[in-house]
């Protein structure tokens, strides 16, 4: 029973790379893993999951009421198949953070949140205090481990696999107390922040929704994702799904450029794993320069147009 079950994340059309990152964590634990895909018309997603290198079996649970990612419905399915697994891993995305603790409680165990490194099957590292401390977490030897995997800390596995797909019918009916209404998606066609190789972000200094076009234009020019500080989101300059940080998205692009972001600890937490951090801020003493690899103390409203010209 030393086997890991991975909860696949998807949007109905494609598998989220978070799934493959969880699989990498399972291999670090040193275990064989299966992947469960829950949804409606899951064939295509299951095929994508089956391509993850080293996947054992992909279990496809296809039912109308699983189409939307409601934790109440998805948790029951995972609990029903939990017996065969020592470890159950989900991503640290909002989907996994919503779902995994519900599963853990139903199984009567505490959850390990945000695994960033693995020592062995019962011994992990994770950040706490907004990334200001890293701690060792020991789960009791031989206990069932339910955990979320800090996706920014793990690289996806290759996709040359060819696992068997097994169909399973849903073991529970739809929850009667929770109903999905809709999803208003903020993001456009730009690369997803959690997987983009470059991210361009704007802060409060952008000063208006219109000015944020500068961020989008520069992002599009270099194929980057677009992000923001909480202050920019709160002010209504851009949608909430662009927020980077402790309470937004934790990201690890090769290149991160922050325009007019002061560098509050809650923001820095979200970008610590980036390859190169660039900060443009007109205040030479802004704390963001303490973590930036390359800093430029200048007005963003001059720098962005100049960058567009030089890169266009």
């Amino acid at each position, binding site marked *: 029973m030393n086997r890991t079950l991975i909860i696949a994340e998807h949007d109905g059309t494609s598998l989220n790379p978070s799934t493959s990152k969880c699989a990498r964590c399972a291999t670090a634990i040193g275990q064989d893993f299966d992947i469960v895909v829950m949804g409606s018309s899951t064939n295509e997603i299951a095929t994508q999951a089956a391509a993850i290198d080293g996947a054992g079996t992909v279990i496809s649970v296809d039912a109308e009421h699983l189409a939307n990612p409601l934790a*109440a419905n998805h948790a029951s399915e995972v609990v029903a198949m939990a017996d065969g697994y020592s470890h159950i891993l989900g991503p640290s995305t909002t989907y996994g953070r919503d779902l995994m*603790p519900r599963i853990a*409680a139903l199984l009567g165990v505490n959850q390990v949140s945000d695994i960033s490194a693995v020592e062995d099957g019962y011994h992990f590292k994770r950040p706490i205090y907004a990334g200001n401390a890293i701690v060792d977490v020991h789960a009791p030897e031989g206990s069932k481990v339910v955990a979320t995997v800090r996706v920014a800390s793990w690289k996806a596995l290759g996709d040359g696999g060819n696992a068997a797909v097994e169909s399973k019918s849903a073991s529970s009916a739809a929850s009667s107390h929770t109903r999905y209404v809709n999803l*208003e998606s903020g993001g456009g066609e730009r690369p997803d922040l959690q997987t983009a190789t470059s991210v361009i972000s704007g802060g409060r200094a952008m000063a208006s929704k219109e000015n944020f076009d500068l961020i989008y234009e520069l992002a599009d020019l270099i194929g980057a994702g677009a992000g923001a500080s909480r202050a920019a989101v709160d002010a209504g300059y851009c949608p909430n799904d662009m927020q980077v940080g402790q309470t937004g998205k934790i990201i690890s692009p090769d290149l991160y450029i922050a325009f007019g972001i002061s560098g509050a600890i809650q923001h820095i937490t979200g970008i610590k794993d980036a390859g190169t951090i660039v900060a443009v801020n007109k205040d030479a003493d802004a704390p963001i320069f303490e973590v930036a*690899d390359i800093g*430029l103390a200048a007005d963003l409203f001059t720098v962005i147009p100049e960058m567009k010209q030089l890169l266009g």
Partner: protein
Amino acid sequence: MKILVGIKRVVDYNVRIRVKSDGSGVDTDGVKMSINPFDEIALEEALRIREAGLAEEVIVVSLGGNECQQQLRTGLAMGADRAIQVDTSENLQPLTIARTFLKVIEKEQPGLVLLGKQAIDGDNSQTAQMLAALWDRPQATFASGLNLSGDTATVVREVDAGLETIEVDLPAVVSVDLRLNEPRFVKLPDIMKAKRKPLDVISLGDLGVTSENDLEISHYTPPPARDKGHMVEDTAQLVAELKSRGLV
């Protein structure tokens, strides 16, 4: 309807956290402690619901030693009607906290439980979901919008893909996100008034809960420092350097 609000005492979000040199924890000596910011938002929401006439009573609950009475008093000063301290000297893990909340729920029979989406010390983000599971009731996590109508709540959730709306039957557990509201400031006369509001202390054992901290947390280390960067003079230098690093 009663609303139960979870209040955790945590190191204030403005404090620069330092790991103790022996790795046994983080330094909290003489450090400013506050209500977990998300819990303040949860409480503000509960007060607004009561003020809109949709609830009669707001009860704040904290698990911790006597020091957490300070945060409960602040909650009472903000406007909560009464407070419950579940006395424990242990730093409990979410499953035990959820089990404790369940006991309080059995006694108080609230129609709504509002918790923070995460406590900013442990960053666990588990308690609300666990409580909903144990209670066998709906969960609506990361709420940035909450509307009550009869026996249902419509909740807007901040998810990675945007804003998701779900509808849940009450009673339910809602965990709140930062954009739900802006908490009110506490006024001096309210602090005086809060001293006379009821604050009950119950021990964990009296509630019939035994602590099950089965995860062992040790070896605190500061995060690896990033290499010191450098400043460039102008945009041309910046772009040249990005190009030479192969990043653009």
